[in-house]
């Protein structure tokens, strides 16, 4: 019996020739990532279990990226950054991206990619559910809690139940106004917020392989919103081109076998995709944008690991150029690199930063910011009963701040088109003009 790419990677890291879904295996970990929200708890458990003076299993495989609560006066949040610094110092860890320095990066999932920690064939765990993002590089990656992360810090290993795989194939070509965000919202709407629980979501087909790395990351990023253990896309030339510029570490490319067994397979025609939103208060509450055009909005938010990459801002800028937004519009680049690109990249001779400023949008510093609400002084945090259109990943009650707010998840194209009109708006005519 053949194996899927997920099964092959897990088998290789468990020292086995083959594994089957349902097997519990101990795997060797290539990278462990943590951040300011879960790092302090992880380090406390590590010290309690392995001793005050214990050393991490491999300094070079631990990556610490503060990104959640960064630009805040909250004393507890800032204390947590100090705890990261202290641990990094004690352990002499080389991969730390400190707040307030030139080395600061921003949102961990994009920073992992940009700093060369996403490498095909590897196993990466992170103390964040959106760690599934890294699967876009043909690697196994998933989110874990503090306890499991502390276990890895001490041993370099973790037990994993081999997931069944689900295959989502897209044939044909996506229309120009369709982004990966529309695709993933569509799939989550089809299978539900627990439709992929305990399973791998494997993306295939010409339309998927035509996407850039950033768009592939969006697809894998939201696997967790369907309950998925991991999202994964086989590495190809697009992947290796991206990785080559970021790291010279060796990696291995795995492919799913022709006779690999899938729990579920569905083929979509990419040409028929439409712009999608997830209505409040669940990522699977799918509706076509064209069905929601009467929804009046108070603000638009473009940012996060899901929708704060350069591709996302290029899309938004294309629509906002030379126009004015009608509602408060927040632009939050995921990382410093994206922020720098906003100053460099131009459309019609105008930088993206200038396009956004001239459109009347507000620009924030790179971090998770209001994607998960955060401390009261967080940039873009939803207040009162505001209705928000957002390129982020979750619209649970209170997720972006106020418990009374209403969040519609959408693509950057849809968010930008809606910012121009003040109500949910189909971006098709803006994009195609």
């Amino acid at each position, binding site marked *: 019996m053949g194996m899927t790419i997920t099964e092959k990677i897990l088998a290789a890291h468990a020292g086995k020739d083959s594994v089957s879904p349902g097997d519990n295996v101990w795997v060797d970990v290539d990278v462990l990532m943590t951040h300011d929200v879960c790092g*302090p*708890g992880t380090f*406390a458990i590590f010290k309690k279990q392995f001793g005050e003076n214990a050393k991490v299993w491999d300094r070079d495989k631990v990556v610490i990226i503060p990104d959640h609560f960064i630009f805040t006066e909250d004393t507890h949040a800032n204390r947590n950054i100090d705890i990261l610094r202290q641990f990094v110092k004690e352990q002499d860890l080389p991969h730390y991206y400190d707040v307030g320095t030139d080395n600061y990066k921003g949102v961990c999932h994009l920073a992992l990619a940009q700093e060369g920690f996403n490498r095909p064939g590897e196993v990466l765990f992170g103390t964040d559910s959106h760690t599934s993002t890294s699967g876009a590089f043909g690697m196994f990656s998933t989110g874990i809690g503090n*306890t499991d992360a502390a*276990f890895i810090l001490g041993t370099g290993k973790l037990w994993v139940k081999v997931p069944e795989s689900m295959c989502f194939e897209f044939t044909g070509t996506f229309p120009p106004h369709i982004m990966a965000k529309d695709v993933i919202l569509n799939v989550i709407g089809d299978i539900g917020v627990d439709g992929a629980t305990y399973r791998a979501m494997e993306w295939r087909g010409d339309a998927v392989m035509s996407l850039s790395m950033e768009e592939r990351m969006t697809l894998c990023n939201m696997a967790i919103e369907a309950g998925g253990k991991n999202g994964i896309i086989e590495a190809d030339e697009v992947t290796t081109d991206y990785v080559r510029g970021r790291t010279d570490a060796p990696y291995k490319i795995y492919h799913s076998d022709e006779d690999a067994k899938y729990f579920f397979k569905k083929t979509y025609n990419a040409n028929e995709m439409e712009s999608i939103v997830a209505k409040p208060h669940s990522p699977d509450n799918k509706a076509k944008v064209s069905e929601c055009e009467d929804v009046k909005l108070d603000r638009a938010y473009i940012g996060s690991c899901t929708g704060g990459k350069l591709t996302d801002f290029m899309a938004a800028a294309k629509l906002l150029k030379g126009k004015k937004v009608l509602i408060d519009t927040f632009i939050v680049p995921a990382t410093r690199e994206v922020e720098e690109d906003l100053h460099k990249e131009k459309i019609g001779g105008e930088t993206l930063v200038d396009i956004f400023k001239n459109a009347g949008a507000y620009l924030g510093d790179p971090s998770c910011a209001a994607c*998960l609400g955060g401390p009261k002084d967080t940039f873009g945090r939803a207040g009162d009963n505001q209705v928000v259109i957002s390129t982020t990943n979750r619209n649970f*009650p209170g*997720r972006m701040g106020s418990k009374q707010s209403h969040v519609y998840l959408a693509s950057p194209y849809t968010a930008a088109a809606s910012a121009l009109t003040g109500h949910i708006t189909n971006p098709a005519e803006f994009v195609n003009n």
Partner: protein
Amino acid sequence: MKKIIEGLAYVLGNDVDTDQIIPAEHLVYSLSDPEERKNYGKFALSGVPGDQAGLPDGNVSFTEGDDFESKYSIIVGGKNFGCGSSREHAPACMEIAGVKAVVALSYARIFYRNSVDGGFFIPFECDTLLVEEIKTGDDLKIDLNANTLTNKTQGKTYDLKSLGEVIEIIEAGNIFEYARKTGMIASS
């Protein structure tokens, strides 16, 4: 491991996410400082929308005022309990508030794993949609030997699903104790 767990029920609906269990603005307190960690108990389940908090009536506070412990120690949930983020603060805040067990139709993967590996409480599954049967405040008893849940208030007993292979980690206490028992890491 205790073989009998007794307590009052606090009933929630489907898809209770980790932002409802502990809103992100509270993820800043220390989990190891004995005093500071009490904040997690105080704010446990504070993000649940009022009409869903303590079913069937709703608008039942899980903890009162500044208390960090709840009088309810068994949570009854629907499908996909604990979906969303990987924050271990979610099962931790429930344990700090005094939760001894959760009984749900199904769980989100990371929440389930965190509950077991961290040894916070036992996540039981039951094929009956208990949220339609059990009322917040009902007196419950879980018998691990018989694998049953009894609603003493209503005089009804339900079969629980077997805990399966994770029973070994639950019996050991957490993933570290399990790894020590099996010789994977050295005994301390």
